[in-house]
């Protein structure tokens, strides 16, 4: 366990075709596909500084507390799950105006750089297989 304290950071960016406020609010709205609340079997969400959240999927629980809630530009919260191996990781989402669109930058930092999360990956591993299938299915669901 010598690499237990080594942490990594993951950064993901997307340009969302909607104005800042709308994107910010949608990210905290369980009705919006793509949010963690939306995929949760159960959730608790109190999006204010010091507020806590919980969400679970297939028996895996995620907990955190909000450390910054600055509508409509910044959202920051901690994140603990079996995948963080006891570390309190940090998720920061910034929303930047790009004309009529919004650039969303999500940085998940303080993640343990171990292989411990590997077994857990099975749950998400639809990635290479039915990726496209799932998308078209979801698209018709949200349209209907």
């Amino acid at each position, binding site marked *: 366990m010598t690499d237990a304290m080594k942490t990594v950071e993951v950064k993901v960016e997307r340009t969302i075709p*909607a104005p800042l406020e709308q994107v910010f609010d*949608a990210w905290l709205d369980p009705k919006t596909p*793509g949010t963690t609340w939306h995929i949760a079997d159960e959730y608790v969400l109190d999006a204010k500084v010091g507020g806590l959240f919980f969400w679970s999927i297939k028996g895996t629980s995620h907990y955190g507390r909000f450390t910054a809630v600055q509508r409509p530009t910044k959202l920051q919260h901690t994140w603990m799950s079996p995948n963080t191996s006891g570390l309190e990781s940090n998720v920061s989402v910034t929303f930047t105006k790009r004309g009529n669109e919004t650039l969303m930058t999500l940085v998940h930092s303080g993640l343990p750089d171990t292989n411990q999360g590997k077994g857990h*990956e099975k749950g998400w591993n639809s990635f290479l*297989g039915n990726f496209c299938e799932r998308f078209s299915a979801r698209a018709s669901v949200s349209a209907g």
Partner: protein
Amino acid sequence: MTELSVVLTAISHPTRRAMIDRLAKGPAGFLELAKPFDTALNSVTKHLKMLERAGLIARKKHGREVIISLRAEPLKNVAGWVHHYERFWNEQLDEFEHHFKSTKGKEKKR
């Protein structure tokens, strides 16, 4: 590490990914596998060689026909190489973005 590079190269081409998708549904003969692609048969052979080198497919002779099947193990190494949360957030944000693209204009009426 070299093995990982070979696998990553193998899945870096859309045609080869489509072949993997097809084989994920079950084994197929060479012609059946080649059918959906708008490429020459010898280019299909080339793609298959790259998949084979990466250990992603196995060939089995069935009389005169060769049946090709998927071996998914090397893909697991790739999955382990990309961080869990990198995939997780990419999937979530893809869906989030897709939601805005697919409901654009519709939501305003509500």
